[in-house]
């Protein structure tokens, strides 16, 4: 069985086990949708009072918000396993069993916990997208929608890499670290608004260090016909590729982490 087939098998098992408790699933799914859609409602309240933020309208920000939420929801669903590497695998010693199997460890970790409940956030993102489209009434062609999908893919890869790095950190801490949320959830929160509303150092941090701006801000700004200063359109189109490059870096760090991993024993 090749890697892909194995991964799908993993996901199918994970989905089936979560669906054994349908009520629990519905409750978690709908409460996540509810909590995240309320945050989006908060954005509307701010625009109802202030009208705009540095020239951006509610409809435009709704598009940023939607793309960031969708990308994060996909990443969260696929790679929730990295959140629990510390408590579920390192601390218990179960990670040793994973290393014994002749398959990629990252694939096993992500495959074991396909977080179906992040569909709540996904639906919230799609709702925000519908609001944005309804208000913008854009005359987009296929190219624009392709670019948005490309941005989602780049953004999701970036968020997956961040979670992967969080998992590597757990090799040493054996705990789930709340600090890691600053880049994952914090990155999502930052990307829900156009990056140019923030102060310079934060913008640079989110462009060069954690390239959330490259994957999400540049392409969406281009689609909205709002040139990011100093970024030509061809670069904005290519920018989400940094998300995949970052994933490559994270995977290398993961392998390095495994080389230095010492079992907690049991």
């Amino acid at each position, binding site marked *: 069985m090749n890697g892909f087939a194995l991964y799908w098998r993993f996901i199918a098992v994970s989905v089936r086990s979560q669906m054994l408790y349908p*009520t*629990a699933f519905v*409750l*978690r799914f*709908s*409460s*996540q949708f*509810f*909590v995240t859609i*309320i*945050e989006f*409602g*908060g954005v509307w*309240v*701010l625009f*109802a*009072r*202030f*009208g705009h*933020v*540095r020239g951006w309208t509610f409809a435009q920000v709704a598009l940023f918000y939607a793309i960031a939420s969708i990308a994060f929801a996909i990443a969260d669903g696929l790679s929730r396993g990295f959140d629990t590497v510390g408590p579920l695998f390192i601390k218990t010693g179960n990670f040793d069993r994973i290393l014994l199997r002749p398959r990629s460890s990252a694939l096993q970790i992500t495959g074991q916990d396909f977080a179906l409940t992040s569909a709540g956030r996904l639906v919230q993102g799609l709702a925000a997208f519908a609001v944005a489209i309804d208000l913008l009434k854009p005359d987009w062609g296929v190219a624009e929608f392709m670019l948005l999908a490309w941005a989602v893919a780049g953004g999701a890869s970036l968020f997956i890499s961040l979670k992967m790095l969080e998992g590597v950190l757990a090799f040493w801490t054996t705990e789930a*670290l*709340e*600090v890691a*949320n*600053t880049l994952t*959830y*914090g990155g999502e*929160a*930052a990307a829900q*608004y156009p990056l140019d*509303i*923030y*102060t310079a150092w*934060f913008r640079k941090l989110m462009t060069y260090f954690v390239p959330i701006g490259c994957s999400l801000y540049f392409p969406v700004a281009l689609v909205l016909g709002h040139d990011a200063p100093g970024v030509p359109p061809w670069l904005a189109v290519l920018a989400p590729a940094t998300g995949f490059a970052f994933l490559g870096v994270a995977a290398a760090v993961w392998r390095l982490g495994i080389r230095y991993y010492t079992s907690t024993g049991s």
Partner: protein
Amino acid sequence: MTTLALPYLSILRARFSLMLQYRTAAWAGVATQFWFGAIRVMTLVAFYAGTGRQPLNLAQVVTYIWLGQAFLALLPWAADAEIAANVESGNVGYERLRPVDTYFLWFARALAWRVANTCLRAGPVFVLAALVLPLTAMRDWSWRMPAGLDAAVLFLVSIALSALLSSAMTVLLNIVVTAVRTPRAAGFAMGFVNLFSGLVIPLALFPSWAQTFLLWQPFAGLADIPYRIYFGALSGAQAAEGITAQIVWVVLLVLLGQWWLDRVLSRIDMQGS
């Protein structure tokens, strides 16, 4: 009187010292809350740039955000984890055997949990946002001092009421969890708490026609009322109104909780052993 209160006081003390064991987690929490506070401050600064008069000025909103981050652990986001676990295992039935009033036992546990967690986190956030930030180039983003001595005193009264209100709501969540027998039932509470306590957006920035309702709904007393008292946006008669709303809700929710808990516990089926 003192002998009657003794069991509850020792619960308070025991839980407090338990919480203080988790210092590393608290430091991680502080760093996270400071970072999220900074992102929220930056967003609000951007909204305020080039706008006219608003119900709260920028310094007040920034202070509001930092207060929210410092007192985040006070919010009743979830049921008591231990009681929720007892509900799943069936051990909740033992609560009936204890020779103390179950309601006040749960209330004392909730209060100790919320207050201990807040004590650990509020101080460092204050040091970072109110003492360190003013020394940097990001002076405008710092947590400001209270409007005056009277505002400070009223704030302490009001935030103490917030702790009581939050504990009463936590016990209500415990009861819901016990009644429907799954800890996940409490998930929706977070949405209501976030929106109506002012954590997502300060309540004063909501449309003006909603303001009276927003002040008198139960969640305002968790955060918005004490914060507005702190920087003087609610003072005099308005501050009295806010504190009255808090007291009314504490009393109502405690009475509701006692009545409901009685009904739920009298119906518990003990299965097996």
